[in-house]
């Protein structure tokens, strides 16, 4: 079955409530383009994905996974995603405090981006642009268009 892809649902799993709140705040200016859905674990995100599938809802335009979470890590969740034919092609990034080269390589092998969480606002802007590179193309164009207007 060919499934239509929504242009603006982003799923983000992170056990750190502060980081979840920050992401919501940072994406607030794009709220008319992005519907951010937050999860405190990767398994909760996977469960939501399954619900979307059975509801025949549109697929997310980006999946963002923290690496260091209790239970399964972001990479382990990513492996589950890639093994499942329903989610194997979804755009995804590992969004993490880590700078470990082996994790960068592992993410690349799983066809996902690897982005280190920013330490300040200057880095935040760079990180959001890095994240944009991995978004579903139509959403990427819309956000770039929005940003280029200087809004």
């Amino acid at each position, binding site marked *: 079955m060919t499934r239509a892809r929504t242009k603006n649902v982003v799923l983000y799993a992170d*056990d*750190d*409530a*502060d*980081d979840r709140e*920050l992401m919501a705040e940072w994406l607030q200016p794009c709220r008319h383009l992005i519907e951010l859905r937050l999860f*405190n*674990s990767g398994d909760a995100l996977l469960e939501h994905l399954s619900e979307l599938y059975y509801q025949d809802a549109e697929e997310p335009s980006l999946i963002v996974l923290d690496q*260091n*979470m*209790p*239970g399964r*890590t972001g990479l382990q969740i990513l492996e589950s995603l890639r093994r499942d034919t329903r989610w194997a092609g979804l755009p995804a990034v590992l969004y993490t*405090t*880590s*700078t*470990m*080269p082996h994790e*960068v*390589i592992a993410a690349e092998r799983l066809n996902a981006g690897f982005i*280190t*969480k*920013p*330490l*300040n*606002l*200057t*880095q*935040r802007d760079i990180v959001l642009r890095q994240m944009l590179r991995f978004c579903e193309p139509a959403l990427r164009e819309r956000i770039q268009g929005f940003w280029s207007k200087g809004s």
Partner: protein
Amino acid sequence: MTKKSIQIDDFDRLSLEEQIALLHSSATYIGKRKHEGYYYVLLQLFGFYAEIRYEFYRVEVNAIRTSIDSSIIDPYLSQIRVRGLDDDTKRGTSNED
């Protein structure tokens, strides 16, 4: 993908922006804590530790304190998880947020 190391004295001589950039590209995250209205994030960079202080988390770095003394880890110990041990422990329990 090797990383060029830096000594603590050399790090301390860098500008704050240079320190932040180096920590972002090369440091290992150890933990985060809140204390008296500030957020603190502890990182390890090669042979020393760097503790970032924020009034507003991940927005603006107020200060960076460096140390080679491992006692700087003490306030963070309760949240450090050792994978494997954590996996064993969590069976039958719910994950904390």
